């Protein structure tokens, strides 16, 4: 049986306010990882001026701004710490992109950042690693 946690109002507000930041960081991580797969597989699409990178940098800036504005409650402190570490590591991964996509240099901080996002998703309700609702298996059963 699933246990549903009832959050206090301030924590619920934090969840709502930081969902976008979480989603944005996840998107940046996905964009970088996708480019790294292409680079590691030798695809001609994997170029350091790929439009996904510009988009990733823009989204990352917005996520960082949202992170600065967040007001975590005591219940949300752990989540916030994971989110902040994720942002720092993903920022490091972004900063490693120079004239070429060096898969090994980018992958280490990127993986660390995504692991922090996974921990964040596990530490508070309301943060999904995969959008199951919109996936093939996305038929929500009655609770």
């Amino acid at each position, binding site marked *: 049986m*699933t246990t549903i946690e009832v959050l206090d109002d301030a924590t619920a507000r934090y969840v709502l306010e930081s969902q976008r930041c979480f*989603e*944005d960081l*996840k*998107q940046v*991580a*996905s*964009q970088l*990882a*996708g*480019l*790294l*797969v*292409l680079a*590691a*597989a*030798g*695809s001609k*699409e994997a170029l350091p001026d*790929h*439009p*996904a990178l*510009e*988009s*990733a940098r823009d989204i990352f800036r917005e996520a960082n701004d949202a992170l600065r504005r967040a007001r975590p409650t005591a219940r949300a402190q752990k989540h916030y710490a994971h989110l902040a570490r994720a942002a720092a590591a993903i920022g490091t991964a972004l900063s490693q992109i120079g004239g070429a996509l060096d*898969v*090994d240099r980018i*992958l280490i901080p*990127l*993986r660390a950042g*995504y692991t922090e*996002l*996974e921990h964040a998703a596990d530490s508070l309700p309301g943060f*999904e*690693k*995969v*959008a*199951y609702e*919109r*996936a*093939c*298996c*996305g*038929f*929500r*059963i009655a609770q």
Partner: protein
Amino acid sequence: MNAYSLWVMEFAAVPNYPQSGLIYGMHNQGTRKLPYCYIVIKGQGQLAMVDVGYNHKAHGEVLANTFGVRGWRPPHEVLGEIGIRPEDVGTIFITHAHFDHMGNIEDFPNATFYLQERELSKWVWTMSLPRRFRWLMLGIDTADIMRAVDLARQKRLVCVEGDRQNVLPGIDLHAAFDTHTWGSMYVTVRNDLAANSQSSWVFCGDLAYTQENLRGHDPHDPEYIPVGLATCSQFNLVMTAEEMVKSTGGDITRVVPPHEERLKDLFPSRITKAGLRITELALADGDPSQVR
């Protein structure tokens, strides 16, 4: 003469899945069981699979508690039922990159994975679109992409561009672009190894979920009805259905949707102690049955 033994291995299931998700337009017409399966291809000194299922560590609890997915068992247990170990699998064809088809790659440490390059490159393109386009990312798990990076670094990821013949003897890959996903593909096994095969099987991933997608509701007056969920084009799904059926000489029972529960009505099968079904499509010459 059969070059390969072919099995459909169930690894989890949703007991009551809405038919509208499987067959376009079947709204408010009840539910059916939706098994999750992967395919095993064994013969010619090769051990291959089509898709690998999802990563239970990452998704199991949510899928079980929220989406009613039941009975997940790990590959070593599912494959063990037919005497195979995941580490013995040498080749894996990923039909598309949704988490329930490619999420379990880390359980197959010695396999080389084949995936359409377009599936990856269009993801990356999709991810660079504004947030309001996020529906296009459905079913994608960032962690799978990370694992794919590792595969590529280890030279175990082959990005295929379009069709490719004889990846293994008698086994061909066919691109089905802009259908269920951007870079879906289906796998053909010519089980007599002949170029103009009289014994072809098609493993279609999610290009069809059920037989109705391939023959409509009236077997005597067949029509193609696309699946209930497509990132891209229903038109392309219908045209791909025609290609797949033609490649079996018109025998739709040889187009195998891994989510079709009623394969059991067409082929010999058995239920394991874990309650999962093994369906035996073909046996290579000299191979013993695993279901009798």
